[in-house]
């Protein structure tokens, strides 16, 4: 972003990579798949790079409003300085926070989740799927809480899956009734409380009931939780957990 701005250029959209997308080895693959799609569609975009910082979502959900607002105000200053208008992110937590909680602190942007943005690219003809790497595969989609219930985005990811010519199979809890993967509310960063089982195992069992070839996720944290769940069931050889951006990129043979 800094380089473009120095040249006096303004990208169409800022890709907010997020902490997972920047540092988590699994999530980095999602970041790269999404970048390949952006390049294929010739989208003018930039990233903040080392000027990006945590949105503050996990701090806020953990109860540390102070740390959240410090992060938010800092990020907003950076984005406002670069005159950012439009933000796209592959993380529903970043998406929710920037979209809903930043405006009250002075950060007003058009914020899109990457599934919404990809859907727009298809609609405008900038992306078009040919070939069917996933033709006939059974794909089940796990609704991330912060995309689904939190922001009522249920259809964009599903429409993308349908473009793969794959068979979209729904779990018994989906859309508004989707079951959490267990990572939200800062649970990702702590051990769960005592109980009978972990939430991600429960959700993985629901996914397994659909006998999927692929569990599609749209959130790096859900991806981690579901991947762990599949490993726990020792099914990693037959069931893949993939982000929707990865599915599209692979189908596009990128």
């Amino acid at each position, binding site marked *: 972003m800094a380089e473009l701005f120095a040249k006096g250029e303004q990208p169409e959209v800022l890709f907010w990579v997020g902490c997972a997308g920047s540092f988590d080895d699994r999530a980095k693959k999602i970041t790269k798949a999404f970048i390949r799609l952006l390049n294929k569609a010739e989208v003018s975009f930039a990233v903040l790079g080392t000027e*990006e910082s945590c949105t503050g979502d996990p701090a806020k959900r953990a109860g540390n409003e102070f740390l959240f607002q410090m992060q938010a105000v800092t990020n907003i200053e950076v984005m406002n300085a670069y005159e950012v208008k439009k933000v796209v992110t592959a993380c529903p937590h970043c998406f929710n926070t920037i979209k809903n909680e930043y405006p009250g602190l002075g950060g007003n942007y058009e914020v899109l989740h990457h599934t919404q943005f990809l859907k727009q690219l298809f609609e405008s003809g900038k992306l078009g799927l040919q070939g069917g790497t996933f033709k006939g595969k059974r794909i089940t989609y796990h609704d991330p809480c912060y995309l689904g219930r939190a922001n009522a985005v249920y259809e964009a990811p599903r429409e993308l899956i349908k473009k793969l010519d794959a068979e979209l199979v729904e779990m018994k809890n989906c859309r508004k009734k989707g079951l959490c993967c267990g990572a939200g509310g800062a649970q990702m*960063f*702590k051990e769960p409380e005592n109980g009978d089982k972990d939430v991600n195992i429960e959700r993985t069992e629901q996914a397994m009931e659909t006998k999927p070839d692929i569990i599609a996720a749209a959130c790096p944290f859900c991806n981690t939780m579901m991947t762990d769940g599949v490993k726990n069931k020792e099914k990693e050889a037959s069931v893949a957990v993939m982000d929707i951006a990865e599915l599209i990129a692979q189908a596009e043979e990128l």
Partner: protein
Amino acid sequence: MEYFPNILFALLLIAGIGYFARNVKKLARNIKLGKEADVSDNSSQRWKNMAMIALGQSKMVVRPIAGLLHIIVYVGFVIINIEVLEIILDGLLGTHRLFAFLGPVYNVLIGSFEILAFLVVVAVIIFWIRRNVIRLQRFLKPEMKGWPKKDGNLILYIELVLMFLFLTMNAADYQLQLKGAAHYASEAGIMGSFPISGFIAPLFENLSISSLILVERTAWWLHIVGILLFLNYLYYSKHLHILLAFPNTYYGNLKPKGQFKNLQSVTNEVKLMMDPEADPFAAPDEDAPEPEKFGASDVADLSWVQLLNAYTCTECGRCTSECPANQTGKKLSPRKIMMDTRDRLEAVGKNIDANKGSFVDDGKQLLDDYITREELWACTSCNACVEACPVSIDPLSIIMDMRQYLVMEQSAAPTDLNNMMGNIENNGAPWPFNQMDRLNWANES
């Protein structure tokens, strides 16, 4: 002595409604113990929500069986209240079936009340079976032990008794009309139609007119006294939802569920920190009010809408049955969060009553004495409970406010979370990675 029944009835009515009004006042006072909340926006959408969710029961039918049964009892309750209006007027004026002049309309009305009463009986019996024979899991959670379970059954028994009294009253009345008893029968013919009590009426065929009058009057009086008692039972019961569901859905959250409110008191602090003009060595203003407490440890720290939520909860447990933490055996139950909040608020209210209008510290608070930290930290903030609630209650907001108190007032976050927050403070990510390495992925293959 001629007017004795009328006077007795009027006195009962005044006592019943008066005592209820007294408790409603108490209820309003307790709710107002909460902090202010701005809910003045978007009133058209709010009215719409109330019409859809409370009046139209739109979220009840998400679970079709319970939803349909509930609609029967709800419609029965609302419609049969037209009949209660007639009963009250009859009682005050000493008339019999005052509205009978409506003719055929009246017959249709009474007939439909009877059919509804019968359907309510059926629905209530099925509800009882669900709670006590099939023993649906959500009615058996730990927080339902004792009074909540009794309360639930008691409501069903009262409704059952009221419906039977209503039908008995009609059956005896029908017989009296058939026998042409004075005061009951009308020259215009039979008043009302009796599709259900017509089946009970033959049981009374051999009774004398005076015995019939005794049966009819007994049922009539017990029915209306029962209704007045039930009205006053509401305040002591989860059944308050029949009234509070309406304001509660009106004041329900209109924003996206993922949007948690930004604390203004924190914003002020943050602005001060970011202000280059601020004097870092300034002594605090002597007259400055005490800084606002962050988060909630007791009911008075919550907003009045959250307290209204607590009184509105009817303990149906849809929230808890959708909660991922509860489903996997953790202690958290969103329903218990609401019940605890209500119970604590009631305790605070009683404390105020006992101490002539002011609260005297009782050494207790909502946190720890009612809601444990283990429950609060088990929440994934997934909003399943909020989505599930048929009357727009938001248990998640209470959990988050209490977490804020734990973290910002007590620094009492679990160690793992303190590490995460330390990382965000130091290097701008929840994990211990260097901020300068944020773009490294771009150069990795």
